[in-house]
């Protein structure tokens, strides 16, 4: 039984339906990558899992989110709140803006333990300092009292990670935790996350659009395109034998070491906006391996090899 199992999740925000029947499962101790281009619905998936969709003005129209066997879509807000930050923690995209700018960072970390573990201020502080030490934050005492603007981006992201770890969660949802950081810092953070999963045995749902990062630390990958799952498979499969033409094209967009000049082409066309999703397979207008059926019928997510793919022409991927 997976720790988190998202089943046919559909989400609506006002008149638009940015997520359509998204399914994937995150096992305990696994790093599950959620990739896709901008607007593909990665963050919305994360927010759905966090139960924060209503804050964005959205709602779940269908599907289930099973966490530890419990259907979160039916959980009353009070209980959901007790879960958030406690058993499911969030690391957000932009460390620059996810800390309260007018409070010292230390108490912001400690707040989690006081809320969920009922710890005293002193105990929470000690725990926070300990965690900060584990995340190799130098001079933790000083940093504890510092305000967010006094810290570098990498440091802030570590603070956010400390905040997420504070109540020893089972699942961490990390929404592009490194995008806003410099490459060298980004690499450090990726390393920290990888080490955490390894040492604590928790599950990490890692949202990213960087195939390099995916290759570096993910165990399984779910590829989203235009609000639907294109493919979900173990990482080695995804890179070695992508089943969906989109997955293949996505990987080919990244210049490889020693790639010959003029051999990079990208994917023709543009990523559609929510309002312009085409019928049938949403990728078909840009797909080099499309069949006539692709334009008319929506392919179902079905098992192919060790993963799942929603494609009418899975073998086509190999020949693109």
């Amino acid at each position, binding site marked *: 039984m997976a720790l988190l199992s998202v089943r046919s999740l559909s989400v609506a925000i006002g008149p638009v339906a940015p997520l359509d029947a998204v399914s994937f499962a995150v096992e305990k101790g696994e790093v599950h990558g959620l990739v896709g281009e901008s607007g593909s619905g990665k963050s919305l998936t994360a927010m759905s899992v*966090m139960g*924060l969709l209503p*804050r964005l003005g959205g709602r779940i129209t269908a599907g289930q989110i099973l966490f530890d066997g419990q259907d979160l879509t039916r959980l009353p807000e009070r209980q959901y*709140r*007790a*879960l*958030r*930050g*406690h058993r499911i*923690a*969030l690391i*957000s*995209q*932009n460390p620059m*803006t*996810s*800390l*309260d*700018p*007018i409070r*010292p960072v230390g108490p912001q970390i400690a*707040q*989690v333990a006081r*809320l*969920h573990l009922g710890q005293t201020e002193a105990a929470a502080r000690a725990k926070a300092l300990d965690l900060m030490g584990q995340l190799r934050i130098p001079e933790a005492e000083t940093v504890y009292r510092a*305000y967010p*603007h*006094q810290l570098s981006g990498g440091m802030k992201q570590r603070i*956010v990670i400390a*905040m997420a770890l504070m109540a020893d969660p089972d699942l961490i949802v990390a929404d592009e935790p490194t995008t806003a950081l410099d490459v060298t810092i980004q690499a450090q953070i990726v390393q920290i996350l990888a080490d955490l999963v390894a040492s604590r045995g928790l599950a990490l749902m890692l949202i990213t659009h960087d195939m390099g990062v995916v290759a570096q630390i993910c165990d399984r990958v779910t590829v989203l395109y235009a609000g639907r799952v294109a493919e979900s498979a173990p990482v080695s499969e995804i890179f070695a034998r992508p089943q969906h033409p989109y997955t293949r094209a996505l990987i080919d967009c990244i210049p490889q070491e020693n790639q010959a000049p003029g051999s990079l082409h990208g994917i023709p066309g543009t990523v559609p906006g929510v309002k312009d999703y085409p019928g049938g397979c949403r990728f078909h207008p840009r797909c080099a391996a499309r069949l006539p059926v692709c334009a008319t019928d929506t392919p179902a997510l079905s098992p192919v090899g060790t993963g799942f793919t929603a494609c009418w022409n899975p073998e086509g991927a190999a020949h693109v």
Partner: protein
Amino acid sequence: MLGYFLKRFALLLPVFLAMSMVIFAIVHLVPGDPIDHMLQIGSSVERRAELMAQLGFDKPLPVQYVLWLGRMLTGDFGTALILKQPVLDLILQNLPYSLALGGLSLAVAMTLGVATGALAAIFRDSWLDRAVMTLILLGSTVPAFWLGLLLILGFAVQLEWFPVSGARTWEALVLPVATISLGGIALVARVTRAAMGDIARQDFVMMLHAKGVPAWQIYLKHILRHALLPIVTLLALKIGWILGGAVTIEFVFARPGLGTLLINALSQRDYPLVQGCLLMLGCAVLLGTLLGDLVQVLMDPRMRDRIS
């Protein structure tokens, strides 16, 4: 920190000088002069010249300015020409009325404004929000003097709950404070609602939700604290309003105060008194900007770091 304020203070000096020049000039641009007011039926041309000389009005303007500024700086605001009392005494006599009216209105506007604005922000798009928005609309559009008149008609004349005019008892404060506060509440509520709305959309608030902090705590402990920053800064900047902006209301309720003092002085061409009042209000405004800075620095660690 102290250094910063000394510096800010020093930066105010040129502004103060410019302002004092404008004030001095304004008064001398006003046509008509106070001598006419001081002369009685039956007095002679010589008497007029004598008075001019006695008051120093025969000297060139720049000389008058320098002499005037010199006296101001030593705390000598001169004697009112018409009221024949030291300007400072007159200002001090009226200041308590302005402070009472302004201070109380400010307190009411601040508490009720923040409360209603916060409620509207928390229950955005509910009937409560719409009610507050209507209040804001009325408060910021209905002319204050007209509202004052209606309140007099209703509560003083018909119901006889409060006095019609004057400042003899505390009851006399109720209607003017209510009149001014409505506008103030509207302003504060609008700023609060907008600021809280903006802040609620920021990432760190989403992060607070994600941490499992209860919504009421997020609103009251986190968002409101942020929203107070622009509100308090705004109010500090508008300190001129608190002291001088109540002219209309003072007029409607026939209340003494700095505004009334200034208006009367203006219409009587009482130079020293006009200058004294304007300078007084100007200093209050400048101090307000300083206060605004102080509040920012006290409340916002980012500002605190920027200055040190």
